């Protein structure tokens, strides 16, 4: 019998708010441990939570983007469990009345478009962080305690690891485009758990699901889902039964490891948090937020193809990350030649970003510097070859390209007198080739241009040289 896998994902995205979800502590990543805490996020006796409106706005914008219905009234609930990274002994989350419900996103897998449903998006606070060092002791860091998360729960609509990967990629793009999450899986600002089950292909009834946690990279997710799909199909094929369990992915061994069985499942004893009032959202507020939604990747891709005349491939690459797309548009606006800018961004700029492991924000070769440089290439001041070197130097030295071109003497020689003299001496030094050219071997023009370039130390304007050489050789 043929089997198919059914996958649903639960994604936690850390919101880029200035402050935590229920107190005024700031939320920068990577600071000294225990430098962002107060009575509220430390869960001190007597302290009370106050909801961060910025986090609500970010959750609503996300919900609107994926077509969710925004609840006029939603409720915060306490999820009760004991763990040392949870100072209050409960997490404030949303349970039966979430902020956003019923949306979807469209993904393309193997050239086919597919819609993946989104069940709900709700707000919740993050736990603190435990650091297990060499000693027997475990250390606690409060900085992350109470930072705002949205949990995005998908429908069980994915039929394989590739679809899960495409869904997650699409979601990540949306979150980045909205500027609500920086989606750094390694730093934990985007986390993903999966529910996965198998059933006879084409079946209607869902199989018993297994939850997999701790997949902290896109690669882990694909590998874990592949592994788990294979494992479950093997079990079912050999007549076994899948039991409801939770597994943890171990990237080192490439296997999922059993965490807990159904009998050990937590009873979180959810109930409405009596310290918080119901979250009421006015329709006018929703409309105000809707007006702030940016153009999404798919729409932008389309516009790049039609508006700038880019290839589908170029539009895809340039829109995959919002900062890159913004960069491209800014440079194009200044330079005017979209196709040239697109090539330079895809080849040189993304090369620098990747080689130097930078964000686009870390580029010293800004859109205006790139645009300036490309204008100089266009008007022949500098060769494309030299311009590539300039791009790297601008990045390393954080100076204007003009200054570097001047200092390094990258400017091309376009002065016809100088070039004519150089061409003449090359022709004089290579009479045989000149004879062959004149006899009809026209491709030898490249040889003369190359030799003249060499003679001018690479600074001669190749177009000019070519014209002069053709004229001189007759």
């Amino acid at each position, binding site marked *: 019998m043929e089997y198919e896998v059914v996958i649903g994902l639960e994604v936690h995205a850390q919101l880029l708010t200035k402050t935590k979800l229920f107190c005024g502590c700031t939320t920068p990543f990577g600071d000294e441990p225990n430098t962002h805490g107060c009575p509220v996020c*430390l*869960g001190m*006796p007597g302290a009370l939570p106050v909801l961060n409106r910025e986090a609500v706005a970010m959750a609503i914008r996300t919900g609107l983007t994926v077509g969710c219905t925004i609840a006029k009234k939603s409720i915060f609930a306490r999820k009760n469990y004991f763990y040392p990274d949870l100072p209050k002994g409960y997490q404030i989350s949303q349970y039966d009345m979430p902020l956003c419900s019923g949306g979807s996103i469209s993904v393309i897998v193997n050239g086919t478009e597919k819609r993946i449903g989104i069940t709900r998006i709700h707000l919740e606070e993050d736990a603190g962080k435990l650091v297990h060092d060499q000693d027997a002791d475990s250390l606690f860091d409060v900085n992350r305690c109470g930072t705002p998360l949205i949990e995005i729960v998908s429908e069980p609509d994915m039929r394989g690891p590739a679809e899960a990967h495409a869904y997650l990629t699409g979601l990540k793009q949306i979150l980045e485009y909205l500027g609500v999450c920086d989606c750094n899986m390694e730093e934990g600002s985007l986390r993903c758990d999966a529910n996965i089950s198998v059933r006879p292909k084409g079946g209607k009834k869902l199989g018993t699901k297994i939850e997999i946690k701790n997949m902290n990279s896109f690669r882990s997710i694909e590998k874990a889902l592949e592994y788990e799909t294979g494992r479950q199909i093997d079990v079912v094929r050999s007549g076994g039964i899948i039991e409801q369990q939770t597994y943890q992915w171990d990237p080192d061994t490439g296997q999922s490891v059993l965490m807990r069985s159904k009998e050990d499942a937590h009873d979180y004893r959810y*109930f409405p948090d009596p310290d918080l009032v119901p979250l009421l959202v006015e329709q006018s507020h929703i409309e105000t937020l809707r007006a702030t939604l940016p153009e999404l990747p798919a729409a932008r891709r389309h516009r790049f193809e039609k508006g700038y005349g880019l290839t589908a491939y170029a539009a895809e690459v340039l829109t995959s990350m919002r900062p890159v797309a913004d960069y491209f548009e800014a440079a194009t606006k200044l330079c005017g030649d979209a196709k040239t800018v697109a090539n330079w961004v895809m080849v040189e700029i993304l090369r620098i970003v990747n080689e130097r492991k930078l964000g686009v924000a870390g580029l010293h070769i800004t859109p205006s510097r790139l645009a300036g440089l490309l204008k100089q290439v266009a008007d022949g001041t500098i060769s494309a070859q030299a311009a590539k070197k300039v791009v790297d130097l601008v990045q390393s030295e954080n100076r204007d390209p003009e200054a570097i071109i001047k200092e390094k003497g990258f400017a091309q020689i376009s002065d016809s007198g100088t070039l004519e003299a150089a061409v003449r001496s090359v022709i004089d030094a290579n009479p045989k080739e000149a004879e062959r050219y004149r006899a009809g071997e026209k491709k030898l023009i490249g040889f003369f241009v190359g030799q003249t370039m060499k003679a001018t130390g690479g600074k001669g304007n190749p177009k000019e040289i070519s014209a002069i050489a053709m004229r001189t050789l007759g």
Partner: protein
Amino acid sequence: MAFFNMTIAEASQQMANGSMRCVDETGRALSLIDAADAGLHAFLSVNNNGALRRAEALDNLPVSEKKKLPLFGIPIAIKDNICTKDIPTTCGSKMLENFVPPYDATVVEALQNAGAVIVGKTNMDEFAMGSSTESSAFGKTHNPAGKNHIPGGSSGGSAAAVASGMVPAALGSDTGGSIRQPCSHCGCAGLKPTYGRVSRYGLVAFASSLDQIGPIASDVRDIGRLLEAISVADERDSTNARKPYRDDPSYYSTDIPNLKIGLPREYFGEGLSETVRRPLAALLDRMKGCGAETVDVSLPNVNYAVATYYIICTAEASSNLARYDGVKYGHRSTAASMLGDLYTQSREEGFGNEVKRRIMIGTYVLSSGYYDAYYLKAARVRTLIARDFEQAFTACDVIMSPVAPTPAFRIGEKTSDPLQMYLTDIYTVSANLAGIPGISVPAGRSPEGLPIGVQFMARQWHEGTLLKAAFAAQQLSQ
């Protein structure tokens, strides 16, 4: 045996104009505590040095500044579940024996801003769970009117401190009667404000949807003045309505024409002792003599109030008290080596029996499979009870009722029977469930000489009406 032979407003004025001094009055409170508290054990800690320094600083203010402070120089005791910066706040529990808050509760800040002097922290049932102050981990408090009797609870320390005249005023907290019942048993006035009137920021939570902080004093006028000071709008408590109470001298008169007093038939039937019924009936006659009218009303669902209350308050408590797990807050057992043991052992050693009992009940009623039958149903009954009151208040201005079925019982009398103890809350829990204000004022004494209070309840935000009825009752009972 009041601390002042005048109202707080008058005492404050005299201290401001220099005819009395803050240091003298604070010093007098501290000496009284020193002399009398050994026999009462109303206080868990006394802020000797801090209070005197503060009183001196107040005396040194310019007169114009002094006159702006409505509680200028007034010594005040604070229940030990209200956070006081740098002063231990134990909640009467071994769990928080060493907890020293790094911040003041909003009400404490408000009292300081009004010119009050914090003289000490008062004893209470552990985490405010109890009706007798017997569940305190640090010893029982005695009733000033009869040393073998309980002072009531859970704010037993605050009520005993005011009733014995050691301080002119105190703050308590009231989740199901914890201000009104001890005030009734000790013989002073105590108000549970409308839910949301007073900020809970800094009140160590027992049951968040029921808890309110309120004032305790020997005169109803003092209650109004204190409520005005503590009911500041507070953004740090999301359930605070930001509706500060404004006091008005016109409330304090025995002229009560057309005051409609509702008498719920459910509150004057079976279970109420003659000892309590008699002074209430006498008071009612006198109030009628001053122009009040009585109306029979019915609260059909209040028979379920105690059951409803003990489901909701234990559910919330089981979650609110989860943070005391030995990891961050609270007593940490030294016996444990593994994480699970650390939780179990720390909680086993740190909590007393009553707290454990309520955590277990609360955990049960929230559990999967039981939630709908208990918590959810209780939440619905709570709505019905609130509606009963709304309905009743269409026919009357205030509801009069007993505070407790009997005068203060003897120490140890009910400790072995928790259910009997819970049933003594029958007249008080409904105000918390409905979120309405309730006040207890002395109405008389039992043949043994034990104080008996009367309760008035009013619509939400109608503390003024409540204080008016309570003031008349106070004057007519004297």
